[in-house]
């Protein structure tokens, strides 16, 4: 475990003092990278906030172990998010790579890329879920909670057998949609 795991703990515990430290240490670097690549301070604030929330979600179950410097991970996530934002703004793929102006050990960069890719996979799954029909979303969300599925069936006014049948259909549909997404099919 890297000593910078403490930054992950600050997010998990919503530690105000730790979060302020995190901004003091890393916000100027993120801002410099984004301002240097066609953005402004407001863009940098948005990107950094969304990156930190995504990192919180990634690590929310307490199983995530950081093995590279937090800065390398955060810079990588922000860089990829900013490239996506530029793609959306321009309506076409951005061919120029974002110059982050930072240099890390190759091993740290590789780890940071791996974490950032995992974060994007998880983000994609949740985004794809939101594109599904209301019934499927309702069933999947309810079945993923802590309530037993027999109670879920009762709450939704369905029989238990029908709930399980619909759940497996919805999960199959979600799997197909996720596999077709560029993040999963290797097009990104």
């Amino acid at each position, binding site marked *: 475990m890297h000593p910078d795991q403490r930054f992950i703990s600050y997010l998990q515990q919503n530690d105000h003092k730790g979060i302020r430290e995190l901004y003091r240490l890393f916000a100027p670097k993120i801002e410099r990278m984004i301002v240097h690549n066609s953005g402004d301070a407001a863009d940098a604030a948005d990107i950094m906030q969304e990156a930190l929330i995504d990192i919180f979600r990634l690590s929310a179950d307490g199983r995530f172990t950081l093995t590279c410097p937090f800065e390398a991970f955060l810079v990588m996530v922000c860089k990829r998010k900013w490239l996506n934002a530029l793609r959306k703004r321009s309506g076409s793929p951005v061919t120029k790579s974002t110059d982050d102006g930072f240099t890390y050990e190759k091993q740290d960069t590789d780890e940071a890329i791996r974490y950032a890719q995992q974060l994007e996979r998880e983000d994609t799954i949740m985004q794809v879920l939101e594109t599904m029909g209301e019934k499927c979303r309702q069933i999947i969300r309810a079945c993923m909670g802590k309530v037993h599925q027999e109670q879920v069936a009762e709450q939704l006014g369905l029989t238990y057998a029908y709930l399980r049948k619909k759940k497996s259909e919805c999960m*199959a549909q*979600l799997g197909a949609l996720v596999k077709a997404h560029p993040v999963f099919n290797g097009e990104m």
Partner: protein
Amino acid sequence: MENYFAAIQDYLEGVLPDEDRQQFEAELGRNPELRAETALQAELGAVMKKHLAAEEQVPALRQSLQAASRDYASGRTDEKGRVLIRWLLPAASIAAALLILVYQVGWFSTDFEQLPVLSESVSRGGPDNNQNEEIAKAFNAGAYARSAELLEAALASDTGIVRYTYYLGLSHLGNQDYVRAVAALKPVADGPSVFAADARYFLAVALWRLDRVDEAREAASRVTESDTYHKKSQRLLRRLEK
């Protein structure tokens, strides 16, 4: 195929009877496609459980991040301010005066109240075609008093058309009648319709204009990342913190 996915779910949830589980595991060993699908379904389940459980903590974390971001931004401004005072006070005074002037005429401010376009297409069960066109023309031309009047008339005959309740709220917002805007937008924002997420944003704007800051913050924080007005909601939240 249906049984195929049902078996995967049953296996992952540990509810397959022993004999079926052994058969499934044997098949997993032989069938790479089943192996890949089972692994994907396991990943989907684990990720969704983790994210959905984390979701209730996100609004509080977001508030802490916004506060830290604000502290950082104000610290940066202070630093720049010291340099300006030392070296560029006269020029800065002139620039500040100009900036205030520009800000007051609205060139720099985020237009939180920019309203969407109302489509002229008729929704099923809605008012007749001519009436719909008339409403859309009035609304899109910025004649909000007129569009509100027409929408109230349309809703008098059928109160169940959520689309019209939403645009009635927006018409009141355009008309700067924020109390009525809140009254119309709140049930839409709290309801299950496709307008709910957008209504939350505009409800937040109306509440902000009424100085009901806590309620505005609550409404804006309910606009999620996948919603159209998420970015503007975040900007509004930052504004509300000032």
